[in-house]
């Protein structure tokens, strides 16, 4: 694998926990790599399997559902 590989990860973030945690990470200036693109959802239980499949089909290197 290429050493410079930078994966694109689609993140589904629950509004009440993971997304709030993402905000708090900002307030606390915790640094992390910018590889994830976040989609805010109202609950991680809302993430339809088709959305995950869709992301992979369209070229996402990974999907993370956080809740």
């Amino acid at each position, binding site marked *: 694998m290429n050493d410079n590989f930078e994966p*694109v990860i*689609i993140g589904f973030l629950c*509004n009440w926990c993971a*997304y*709030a945690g*993402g*905000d*708090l*990470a*900002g*307030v*606390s*200036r*915790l*640094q*992390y*790599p*910018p590889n994830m*693109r*976040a*989609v*805010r*959802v*109202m*609950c991680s*239980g*809302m*993430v*339809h*399997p*088709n*959305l995950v499949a*869709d*992301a992979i089909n*369209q*070229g*996402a290197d990974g999907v993370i559902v956080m809740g």
Partner: protein
Amino acid sequence: MEKCIACGLCAEKCPKKVDDEFNMGINKRRAAYIKYGQSVPLKYAIDPENCIHLIRGKCKACEKFCPTGAINFDDTAKIVKIDVGAVILAPGFQPFDPSPYDIYGYGRIDDVVTSLDYERLLSAGGPNMGHLIRPSDHQEPKNIAWIQCIGSRNNNRCDNTYCSSVCCMYAIKQALVTAEHLSGDDVSQTIFFMDIRSHGKDFERYYENAKTQGINFVRARPHTIDPGPDGVGASLRFTTETGETIQQFFDMVVLSIGLEASKHSIALAQTFGVELDTYKFAQTGSFLPVSSSRPGIFVTGAFQAPKAIPRAVAQASAAASTAAVMLTEGRGTLTTRKTWPEPLDISDAEPAVGVFVCSCGINIANIVDVTEVARHASTLPNVVYVENNLFTCSADTQELIAEKIRTHGLNRIVIAACTPRTHEPLFQETLKDARLNGYLVEMANIRNQNAWVHQREPERATEKAKYQVSMAVAKVVNSVPLAQEMLKVIPRALVVGGGVSGMTSAIAIADQGFETVLLEKSAALGGNALSIEKTFKGEPVRPMLESLMEKVTAHPGITVETNAKITSVSGSVGSFVSDIDVGGQIKKIEYGVAVMATGGREAVPTEYHYGSDERVMTHLEFDGNVMGIFRKDAKARKNEKILPGSVREDSSVGEISHRDVSMAGEGTAEVPGSIVFIQCVGSREPERPYCSRMCCVHSVKTAITIKESSPETSVYILNRDIRTYGVWEKHYQRARELGVIFIRYGVHDKPRVNPEQDYISVKTIDPILQMPLEIHADFLVLASGVVPNDNSEIIQLFKCSANEDGFLNEAHPKLRPVDMSVDGLFLAGMCNYPKPIDESIEQAMAAASRACVVLSKETMELDAIKSFVTERCDGCALCLDVCPYNAISLKTVEPPGQDTAKLSGGQGDELKEQGGLNGRAKKQIITDPALCKGCGICFATCPKEGIMVHGFTMNELKAQVAAALA
């Protein structure tokens, strides 16, 4: 303060470092600071005691760098005068400071920390970001000890003789959480305790689970704490129950410090002229548990007595309720309601998106190239206007956005700035002011989740910001205006249960001006309080109970229905409909909210010869049948004899079925010479694995009454732990002073009881003497626990829930202690968990307060983010079972032209069987927006996109994913 955007530049540039008190001084903060990341409001402050400018007149670095000009060195405390009708005091507590006491080693030994220090060490937001290291050498500790009752239950080294109520549970929590913060499996946690007091709901299970997780519980109080070798760790010396003295080394020692009244709260009490008790907590009575000694001033939380979060929250609502009753006449007179112009119809318009990219001063612009982001936005489809703002959230920018909406005909807005969690409501209002539906705005979080977290990679941050804007534009193009449903609230409450809790709730609701229907399943009001003589504080219960019964019957706003039960429930918060069976007659009632106060009862023991020997009784039986002799003074009693007589079942008490022990002849009573209490009968055992909270205090109080009346009577309390929590610890002390003998027994080594002709033989092993004992008792009192009344019908009708023991569940065990998981339902009293009268009254007032929040609105505006059914639904009903809120039901839809739809699956089936639909009827689900919380589990479950959530439809989410990968 209005100008501060919480960017944190002031703190970054401030040269003055001081100990961070929030992290217990373990790390440093600046003189310009926020107390902690979640502060509300999120505004930075200047600490005047440390600010270089305020002390020496130099520096002003923060002022120089603040992008919004929010620094005001001249800001000082101002005296503001406010006219109020009631005051609620909630100053809280201060943690006990062990540093003046050399015996604890705090400050003398590096690795001895307080539980609060430890809490910060464990916290992900703490000084080590949750990586647990000990102070001395910054190594991971492996072997950690907790010492309980530091600054509690002690009249030797400090003045806090009460129990702080919370330390046992937090120590167990910390011990369990510790393992998660350390690498490796070789962690050992030891808790040194006197009694473990896990007397809250589901706490006993937590304690039992901790034992199975390998936490060591040692019943001992370490008397000497010495530094470990090379000043690392600490060694403890303690004496075991068998009398052996042991010295043990620990990597780290945590002092479980208690709660005490602070100087500030004592001063506050003086300012308001409210009286404090001997422990400097606010004085209250059991029947008015949040009313201070001064009318109109209410108290709540640890200011009233040490307590855990759930009771503090319930008390807070109780205080609000009591204040609201006083202020009923003025309710709503000082409020104004905001209105918006009618939104424009945009259904035929092509999406025209305006994108506003915020620099947030330099917060975003320093890292993310906002000009490049704006340029990128202008290339996106449907985007017709792009602008870069210094502060998109400022008041003048709101006017500017509204103006651009009008002049450019914008009908969708994207704000690339901070987080929608704090700022979306602001921009929704801006849209509404500009005659657009509030749901046509989408935020791209390029600050909190970009510029602030990718500070070292500006190029990649800019790249990510561009994607974030693309995603927001893609979503908003697919957004449609959403309507917020208005729900009419029926201003009537239903209260189920006519005990102290139910009656208190009914009065508090009716006193706030709302009609209340009180249901009691038996023939009479009163409940358990009918058989209780005195509260833990010693107030007689009967007069209070009679006054409550009189009030509910006389109150013009309360309808009392006895011999009544609910038989059906439909509807949801704001408008429920029920049939109630009142002595065989069915009545229909409509109501907006309901309070469950269905109560509990003393469990019937199955051990220790209960039922076969009349000298073996429960608490309530003993109170009713024997205690009378001790309530008389010694002179009146002199020639009386008391002898146990025959036993009969008394059916008049209903389900309680207490036996009535009739006495053999008047005037022949003799004072019993020996009475034994056995605690935890049927409680804290596998079949009933909870603590009933009240039995220890009840036994101890009874023992005191006996001893004070007849010092020559021997009283023994056989127990597993004595749980006289909070200020009730004083009764335990008093009982010991009076010579009541406390003997511990183990759950696997229970007392053996043998009734003999003249006495009951109780054999047990004294753990201190390590010797078997035999007591000859005249009476054996069994402290039998509390079981909930049967709630199965309530659970089925309202679709609410109970825990494994049958106690009704609250929506959140800490933060929503009187709300139920079903909106519009509240609970109070023993149906929730065993509790004494004062705590039941607190909960009942709290439930009333929460209920009135709903009742005081004529209409409720529901959020628009709710599930909705699409044309693709074929009625497979997969979503029905997964909905956590029971918001989905199935209906049969008839083809156009035929009869109206019938509700519920059952009715539909019936219709189909009758063959009236010619196979053309179709099933479909319907959702109740009042119950739906918009979680979308239904959406993820549905294989056909037959149900989705407004604002998060498949199209919107797919568009976001596609834009993210474009």
